[in-house]
C-alpha cells in the first residue's frame, strides 16, 4: 500500500467520526437561530431605506471591513503586477506570441459576432448591477468583475492588439487607485462632521430610489471602480505573459 493512502486512511479514522458527530449536532438546515440577521434587516430597511441587506451590511454596518478588503485587493493586484513586470519590464508589444511551427487559427466569425454583441450587453449589465447595489442583489464587487469580463470579451472578439489599443493601462491604474481612494475619502466625511469614520452621514433618501442608502451608493461606486480596474489590470498583466517577447528580452 502506498504511504499516501495509509496516511489518508489514518486521518479518515479520526476525521470521519468527528465530521459525522458535527453533522448531527448542527442546527437544522435553513434555521437561523441568531438575532443578528433580523436586527440588521430591520435597521437597514427602516433607517437606511435599503432593500438589499447584503449591501447594507457591507457598506454601512461593516463598512470598515469592506475598506480592509479593498486595500487587500489593491495590495494583491499591485503585488501580482509587480511580480509579473519584474521579469518582463513595463513595455508592451502589439503582437501575441506563438509557438514556432504552430500557426494560430483565424478567429471564427461566429466568435467575433458573439463577442461584439455580448461585450456591450455585459458592460451594461455590469453597470446595472453596480448602480442597483442597494436595491437588488449584486453590488460593487460583482458589478466590477462583470465590467472587467466585458473588457475581456473585447480581447476574445477583437484580438490582443485591438484590445491593448482600447484599454490603456494607465486608465486601469487610475480606476483601481481612484476607487480605493474614493472609498477611504468618503469615510473621512464622517470624521469631518464630528462623527465616526465611515459613518453614514448622508440622508437615507427614498426607499427604492437609486440614491437611497445615504453614503452606500458612493462607497459602492468606489468598490466598483477599484474592482473593475483591478481585475482588468490583472487580466491585462496575465495576458501580457502570452505576448511575443521583445528584442533583447529574455
Amino acid at each position, binding site marked *: 500500500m502506498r504511504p499516501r493512502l495509509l496516511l489518508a486512511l489514518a486521518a479518515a479514522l479520526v476525521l470521519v467520526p468527528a465530521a459525522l458527530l458535527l453533522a448531527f449536532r448542527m442546527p437544522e438546515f435553513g434555521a437561523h437561530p441568531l438575532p443578528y440577521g433580523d436586527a440588521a434587516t430591520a435597521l437597514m430597511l427602516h433607517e437606511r431605506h435599503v432593500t438589499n441587506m447584503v449591501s447594507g451590511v457591507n457598506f454601512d454596518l461593516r463598512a470598515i471591513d469592506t475598506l480592509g478588503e479593498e486595500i487587500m485587493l489593491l495590495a494583491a493586484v499591485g503585488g501580482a503586477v509587480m511580480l509579473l513586470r519584474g521579469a518582463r519590464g513595463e513595455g508592451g508589444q502589439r503582437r501575441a*506570441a506563438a509557438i514556432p511551427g504552430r500557426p494560430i487559427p483565424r478567429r471564427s466569425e461566429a466568435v467575433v459576432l458573439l463577442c461584439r454583441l455580448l461585450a456591450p450587453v455585459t458592460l451594461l449589465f455590469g453597470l446595472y448591477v453596480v448602480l442597483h447595489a442597494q436595491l437588488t442583489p449584486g*453590488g460593487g464587487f460583482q458589478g466590477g468583475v462583470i465590467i472587467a469580463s466585458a473588457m475581456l470579451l473585447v480581447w476574445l472578439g477583437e484580438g490582443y492588439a485591438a484590445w491593448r489599443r482600447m484599454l490603456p493601462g494607465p486608465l486601469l491604474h487610475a480606476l483601481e487607485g481612484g476607487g480605493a481612494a474614493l472609498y477611504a475619502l468618503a469615510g473621512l466625511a464622517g470624521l469631518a462632521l464630528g462623527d465616526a469614520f465611515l459613518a453614514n452621514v448622508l440622508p437615507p433618501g427614498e426607499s427604492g430610489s437609486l440614491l437611497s442608502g445615504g453614503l452606500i451608493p458612493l462607497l459602492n461606486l468606489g468598490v466598483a471602480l477599484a474592482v473593475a480596474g483591478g481585475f482588468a489590470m490583472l487580466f491585462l498583466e496575465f495576458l501580457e505573459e502570452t505576448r511575443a517577447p521583445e528584442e533583447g528580452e529574455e
Partner: protein
Amino acid sequence: MSLLLITLFLLVAATGTGVVLTREPRRQVLALAANGLALTLLFTALQAPDAAFSQLVVGTAAVPLLFLVALASLRLHGPPKEERKE
C-alpha cells in the same frame, strides 16, 4: 430540504470530484469552471444571489482565465515539453 437542493448538492459533489479526478491541467481548469457553475446554481437555490453573483464571475470567468493564461505562458516560456506518454 427539497429535491432541488438535494440534486444541486449532489451536482456540486459530483463536479468537485470531477476536478480532483481530472489529471490533464487544461481539462481540470474547465472542470473547475463547471464546479463553479454548480456552486452558483446551489447559491441561487439557497436564496443567496449576492454570493451566487460573486461565485459566477470569479469562479467561472476570472479564475479559469488566469489558470489558462498561466498554462499558455508555461508552454510559451517554459522548458520544451517532453513527448506525451500516451
